[in-house]
């Protein structure tokens, strides 16, 4: 920690700790071990965050909770829907609720990779190359309309999303904790979009479709959002350190063998499914389990239940699987197929008579 390389960036709102050059170390993110938040405080903090988001986004408690889940599970979130349903609003609200650095990238076709990651420029006075961090150096990065950028720029996000670091000119810079990319995108059928490649999609932990609000929520929205932007009222309710401690608490959640087996069974079922061209990757199962852990923690439990896995499975898996042409033409959606798999897969509990049969055939 003492050898931490400090980078001074004049206009950047980043804290000193927001990034470091130190290689990523899984156990001690950001170079130091965050404290583990205890259950009660965890509960309070999560309640505060959700309440704060709820102020702004009406009737989208599920989406808000999933966004928080992804944050706590150290994943990245992809918000996909038609324009104008509050994708960006959700991302911004989440970012603002947490007292941490936020940057926003509006993806356009002419955006360059260096705009995202940062660039080394020659400092005349110090006669040295100086790293000027890009927009990705923040705790929460909002990537608006990510599918409007070219594939090259999109993939600039890849490294930082997966490895929490940026490499520019052969130098790696560590990103801060928490780090979360919240990207929004319009449905790929819309004009002027470049669909995210599979590899990139796989790096997002979850994808949420916001969907239209229901009638009452919409009426209320019209009322409250009339005068001013609701974002004005949002104040940070937790600090970045709090979030780091919450993340550490999530990591401590116990996962039993049965849950692991169930998770693997889900993954195998997607790969064996005749209606899927591409099933869930091992990485997606890892993220599924992490999301499940965060869900369990948000539910105030220190162990994962099958319900947690089921809750997040659709959001975590649906954007990674690719349907068979036949399945597409028959009207299936990735969501419906995941739902079907979950409905047909025995949960990790022994149903009467089944255990014995298993042993018979063994």
């Amino acid at each position: 920690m003492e050898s931490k390389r400090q980078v001074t960036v004049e206009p950047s709102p980043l804290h000193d700790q927001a990034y470091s050059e130190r290689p990523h170390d899984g156990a001690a993110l950001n170079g130091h071990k965050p404290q583990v938040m205890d259950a009660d405080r965890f509960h309070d903090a999560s309640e505060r965050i959700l309440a704060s988001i709820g102020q702004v986004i009406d009737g989208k408690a599920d989406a808000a909770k999933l966004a928080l889940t992804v944050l706590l599970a150290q994943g990245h979130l992809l918000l996909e829907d038609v324009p104008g349903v509050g994708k960006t609003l959700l991302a911004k609200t989440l970012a603002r609720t947490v007292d941490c650095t936020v940057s926003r990238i509006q993806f356009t076709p002419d955006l360059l990779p260096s705009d995202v990651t940062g660039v080394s420029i020659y400092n005349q006075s110090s006669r040295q190359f100086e790293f000027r961090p890009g927009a990705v150096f923040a705790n929460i990065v909002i990537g608006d309309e990510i599918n409007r950028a070219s594939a090259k720029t999109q993939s600039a996000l890849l490294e930082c999303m997966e490895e929490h670091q940026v490499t520019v000119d052969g130098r790696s810079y560590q990103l801060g904790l928490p780090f979360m990319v919240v990207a929004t995108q319009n449905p790929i059928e819309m004009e002027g979009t470049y669909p995210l490649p599979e590899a990139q999609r796989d790096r997002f932990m979850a994808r949420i479709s916001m969907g239209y609000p229901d009638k009452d929520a919409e009426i209320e929205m019209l009322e409250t959002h009339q005068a001013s932007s609701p974002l004005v009222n949002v104040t940070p309710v937790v600090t970045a350190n709090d979030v780091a401690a919450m993340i550490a608490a999530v990591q401590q959640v116990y996962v039993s063998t049965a849950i692991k087996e169930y998770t693997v069974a889900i993954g195998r079922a997607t790969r064996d499914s005749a209606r899927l061209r591409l099933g869930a990757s091992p990485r997606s199962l890892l993220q599924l389990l992490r999301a499940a852990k965060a869900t369990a923690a948000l539910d105030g439990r220190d162990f994962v239940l099958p319900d947690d896995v089921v809750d997040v499975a659709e959001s975590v898996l649906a954007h990674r699987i690719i349907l068979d042409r036949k399945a597409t033409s028959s009207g299936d959606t990735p969501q419906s197929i995941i739902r079907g798999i979950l409905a047909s897969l025995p949960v990790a509990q022994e149903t009467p008579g089944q255990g014995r049969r298993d042993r018979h055939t063994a």
Partner: protein
Amino acid sequence: MTATSHRSPEPATQPGGKPGQDQPRRTQPRRPGPGLYPWVMAGSIAVAVLGAALSLNGVLRGWAWFMPLITTVVVVSLALAGLRALGARPILATLGSLASLTGVLSFIFCRQDSLAGFIPTPGTLTAVGRLIKRAGETVVSESAPVAPNAGIVFVMCACLGLLVILVDALAVPLAMPAASGIGLIAIMVVPATIKPQSVGMPGFLGAAVGYLLILGCSHWFAPDARFQTGTGRGSGQFRRSVVTGGLALALAMVVPLAIPGFETGTFPQGSRLSPWGTSNGLNPMITLGNSLRSPIGSGRITYATSSGSALYLRSVTIDHFDGETWAPDDRAAQRRTGADRIETGYSVQGDVVNAVTSVNAGLFTSPYLPVPFAPASVNGLNGNWTWDPQTLSIMSSETTTRAQRYVVFSAAPKVTAKALAQAAPTPKGISDDFLRIPNGLPEIVRQTADAVTRPAANNYAKALAIQKYLRSGEFTYSLQAPVQNGYDGNGLSVLADFLAVKSGYCVHFASAMAVMARAEGIPSRIAVGYAPGRLTGESVALVGQGSFPEYEVDARDAHAWPELYFEGLGWVPFEPTPSRGVVPEYASESSTAGNLSTNADEKDVPTTQAPPATAPVPLPGVDTPATTTASVNPYPAMIAIAAGVLLLIGFLCSPRLSRSMLRRRRLNRKPPGDSHDGPPGSADAAPQLAWDELQDLATDYGVESTPSETPRHFSAKLRSSPALGEVGGMDDAAHAAVASLTSDFERQRYGRPAETAPAAATRIAVVRESLRNNATWLVRFRADWLPPSMMRRWVHALGAPFRAVGALGKWLGWKVARVWRALRGLLPERR
């Protein structure tokens, strides 16, 4: 509730394992030595099969058959156990035991024909064919108990050996020890249907004890812990099982004593396992008893005769006596065609009594033509009929007597006592066949014959003495006694039994007299036909003879009587059967005729009852209304009803009993616990068991759980269903109980190890109470008496054989495909 307050520091090695998937992996390394298990299991199966076979005593006479059976069963069991102990695959063990069965059967029954004494050769096959044919004849011809001849013993050994393999296959590889009872029942079905005294105590006890042993073995010794219940192996459970089993056995012994009708067989007595009861063309000696016992008089024949006196209709002659069975000798080579002129094969001196008889055979169907003795010509027959000059029996191999109307001119020699007394002592001009006594004549027959005929001077006197002896008060006419005492049938051994018991019917009297006569040097044979019948009250005009009264006979008049040959007179019929038929004048010596009655026809025919409504005016003395003899044995019906009621009660109670037993087993267990479902070594499987119980309870009351449902989801479903009632009311406790049971289960299954949940029995009881109160009476009734959770398990168990077959088919298909692929790989590659 208090889910977290009862945590114990007991660590669990593997929490939340998924037994269904873990099990095979875990058991793999435990496989190396099956240890004692195969031997104990094979021993129990052998005990069970041999025990059940005890009940066959009485189907087979004596115990001589038991030794080969023991040998077979023990060898097959040993082969099975040995193969298992060596770790052979199940299919190999079964195949090996089949091979051992073949070997041991060859060794016991066809040693000469087999290679090295036990390896079957083509010669063995023919020998086996012979044995099976013999067994078939035995089954068809004799009624229980049959003499244990090689054929029947072979078939029995083969069947029971196969049963051992079947029971073993059910109990061990298919893991359905309970279903192995089917094999044991299969054994006992035979005595239950055949033996008058049904299965009997020893057989039942033996089978039950063996069955319990099988169940116990598969429970306690199963190598892969399939049915093992951890600490359940302790003495407590053993004691309980012994007490339960003993009680059930004792009940099974006592209940039949309390309910009448249990000690006799289920089927009408004396029935054989022959589907063709009164078949035609079969040995008439055998079908005769059945005809007599048949409750309805089938095969009615009417006839009118000019003879003026009672007339015997004679259809077959039995002259071929060998030790096993007596049968007519058709003498196909000597038969002559054309029944319009029949000549006796011997000379007759003296007067002849001529008679004309018109016979209408009606529905009676037989290849043998019933005619009065001795036919001189038969007119009006359709078809091709042949006759045998030796016996004068008229038969056809192409047509039958059915719907035949014919006129017989008969010429019987006029037999008088004087002529008989003067007959030459050594008959000439008669085949030695009629004097031949089969080997192995029981001593009692010869002794009796000698004793009875000692004072007699000539053949006639001897014959009279024998007849007098048989008609004396010592002998009784009974259709049932031979069946009950096991000597129904024909043959020398039967004869011995008959002379000892002194009760039987015409077949026995006739054959006794015939054999005794032969023993005394008088040629003899047995005629089978009909005793004089009853008047129908109508008269029939015979061409050129005038009008004569019509008689009728049917199956119940079937009769057998001996004919003795006297030089110069030919074949002379006698009537040794008491209370049947008519004793001829020459045979009723004035000194002996005192106690003879000619009018006691059918006095003692218990199971035959003439239908009085249609009976014509009877001849004097014919068929006194059978008031003393109940028509049909009432026992079978009573047994059937009693057994049915018991079965029904047991059947109706069994779901409820097993359901509540399951509940008790799940809830009343001691804290250290058996590892019912959880992985071995887990501290506490109680929440799992309680959860199973909760699921079954919900199923019983109509809330189904599906495999893809998470515990929490199921719990929510149960709590939101109307079955549990609403929250906030009186069902609050039940809701809380469900919630806490769910969380206990979740914690035990998915949470960190080392957590002990509090006892679940009270919470389950609360839930149950609430479910009961909210259910309609119909649902309550179903949950009590036909719990769906139980029914589902049973249906599942019933489907097991089909699934096994399916799995086997799949496996075979897979193997075949693999072999095919391998073979294709061997083929030279095409360029």
